């Protein structure tokens, strides 16, 4: 390379190109749309296309949408259900994923690789199809539902027996399928964390008189808290904003926030309301994240 092109590259051009291109793209297609959503949440609906308008006079914006958001039981309920479902799914993922991650670290090297592959493999297949697979299992005619129903009926008194358990279109189904879909997100960071732990710490604790479960309680569990938090966030965040799972297997009477946003935007054509709910959802995600960052930064500062 010689001549002016190389000279241009060697000065600042190549640097500006590398920084500028992704920057411009993200500002244009990510930041700007989000600003539009925020602005939209202060508008009002109008019978025109696009269906919104701002006030003709100062201050042009209005807070009526947010007022409705915080007073209407529909939105508050959706918020509570979302937090509840996401929290329960995160907890169940942790209860199932932690022993799995621990089991993987205890396996031999080649078995470890196989087990991780088995945990990740469903993630690479289609998300929709994983939800779909559960729709097949949960229907009242399926072998799975029949088996569960039979098991249930053998344990309860005759008066409580059921012809088939209602699984589809319940909150239970939403949580179950979320656990199923997001389990790898819990197992992988936990595995990465547990794998890094120094095995001699366990030996040292045992040498000092601790039995296996005490070693787990005193050493492994406290040292894996970063992994638990990382896995928890990776499950909780997408679960909060989940749209597909509640609309396919959930109960329309107990909507999660994602579904409310879609309904306001689609059926109701209330774009300002959809935007306001979206802003609220984002706040519910950003606040715990910021707290986490804050405490992590504090812990980091303490460590050095």
């Amino acid at each position, binding site marked *: 390379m010689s001549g002016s092109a190389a000279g241009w590259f060697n000065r600042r051009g190549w640097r500006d190109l590398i920084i500028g291109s992704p920057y411009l793209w993200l500002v244009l297609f990510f930041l700007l749309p989000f600003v539009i959503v925020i602005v939209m949440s202060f508008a009002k609906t109008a019978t025109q296309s696009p269906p919104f308008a701002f006030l003709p006079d100062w201050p042009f914006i209005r807070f009526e949408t947010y007022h409705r958001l915080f007073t209407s039981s529909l939105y508050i309920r959706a918020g509570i259900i979302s937090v509840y479902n996401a929290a329960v799914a995160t907890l169940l993922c942790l209860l199932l994923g932690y022993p799995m991650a621990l089991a993987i670290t205890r396996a031999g090297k080649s078995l470890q690789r196989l087990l991780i592959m088995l945990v990740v493999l469903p993630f690479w297949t289609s998300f929709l199809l994983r939800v779909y697979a559960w729709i097949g299992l949960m229907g009242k005619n399926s072998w799975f539902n029949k088996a569960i129903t039979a098991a249930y009926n053998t344990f309860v008194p005759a008066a409580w027996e059921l012809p088939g358990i209602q699984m589809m279109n319940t909150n239970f189904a939403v949580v179950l399928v979320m656990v199923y879909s997001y389990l790898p997100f819990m197992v992988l960071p936990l595995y990465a964390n547990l794998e890094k732990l*120094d095995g*001699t*710490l366990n*030996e*040292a*604790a*045992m*040498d*000092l*008189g*601790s*039995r296996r479960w005490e070693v787990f309680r*005193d*050493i492994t569990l*406290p*040292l894996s808290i970063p992994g638990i938090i990382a896995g928890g966030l990776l499950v909780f965040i997408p679960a909060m904003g989940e749209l597909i799972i509640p609309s396919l297997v959930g109960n329309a009477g107990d909507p999660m926030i994602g579904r409310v946003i879609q309904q306001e935007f689609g059926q109701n054509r209330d774009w300002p309301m959809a935007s306001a709910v979206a802003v609220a959802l984002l706040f519910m995600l950003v606040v715990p994240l910021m707290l986490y960052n804050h405490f992590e930064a504090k812990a980091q500062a303490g*460590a050095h």
Partner: protein
Amino acid sequence: MTAGESAPQQSDFIHIEGVTKSFGSFKAVDNVTLSISKGELFALLGGSGCGKTTLLRMLAGFETPTAGRIFIDGQDMAGVPAYERPVNMMFQSYALFPHMTVAKNVGYGLKHEDMTQVQREDRVREMLNLVQLSHLADRKPHQLSGGQRQRVALARSLAKLPKLLLLDEPLGALDKKLREHTQFEIANIQYKLGITFVVVTHDQEEAMTLASRIAVMDKGVIRQIGSPSDIYEHPNSRFVADFIGSANMVEAEVTKADGAGTEVLSPSLGHPILVASSGYTKGDKVTLAFRPEKVSISRKKPAAAKNVLKGTVQDFGYFGKDSLYRIKLPTGHVLSVNAVNAERAAAEQAVATWEDEVYLTIAPAAAMLFGAET
């Protein structure tokens, strides 16, 4: 495995009997029998993969012997898990719990002891005093220097006052100055508490200064047990002579053996050498070994006629307190010789320099003979 070792006695505090540990077809420890008395500071010395760490881990209870038995204070350790043994270990990596303070680390093992809270706190304070770390009790391990961490690990492993303390390369991670200081500190603490210490190390200097007795291990087998001077001055094999310190070694044949000593001839040296050891007969093939510092070097021809070799200085290195010479003999063989720089002299006044003709004298008592290696 006979030198310096007698049959197990009643006073034997630790008795290891015919212990073997196999990993698949590999024998990490091969039929080791060993006794250690109460209050001893015993070192297991050997290169990496010699089985010393595996032996230590079997004492701690982290590995189960494939064959053989281990007794500690008369009690058979078979089936006793690590957490029930009267044994504590100081790990090579120290294995300090990163989420606990220094005091919590030291007190961790006491949770399982039958003590009151006050007694526990007293013990922790006492241990921290012992290693001079009382002022750092509330620090976390990552806020300590390497030497401080090492002392926390020591205090933690001593806190339960075990009958036996195992130390895995206790000084391995420290720099040279700190090592020398810490060696004496460990020996001091051992003396004060009277606890039996077993140290695993690959560093012969560390083993020599710390231990009262040393077992030299190689390929899962104990090659020699004895005091530091025993092992250095009277190695029982070519392997030990070469592993501990350094030695010039040449192949030789016994030419004369009578009351005056044994005379050997080595084609590498070209002159017959008289050796003050016995047990060989004429015609035996042997290895003649002598340590570099046990050879005297001079530019003048020495008065004694025996055991004198002539050579030229091929190379030399100046180390301050002493110098190492590489002397080339007329046969072409090169010997290493140490000379202490006892006088403060300018370089040109040193014992010898390049291309100088020098005379080497090997005292009959300093030369060692080894038969064919088994």
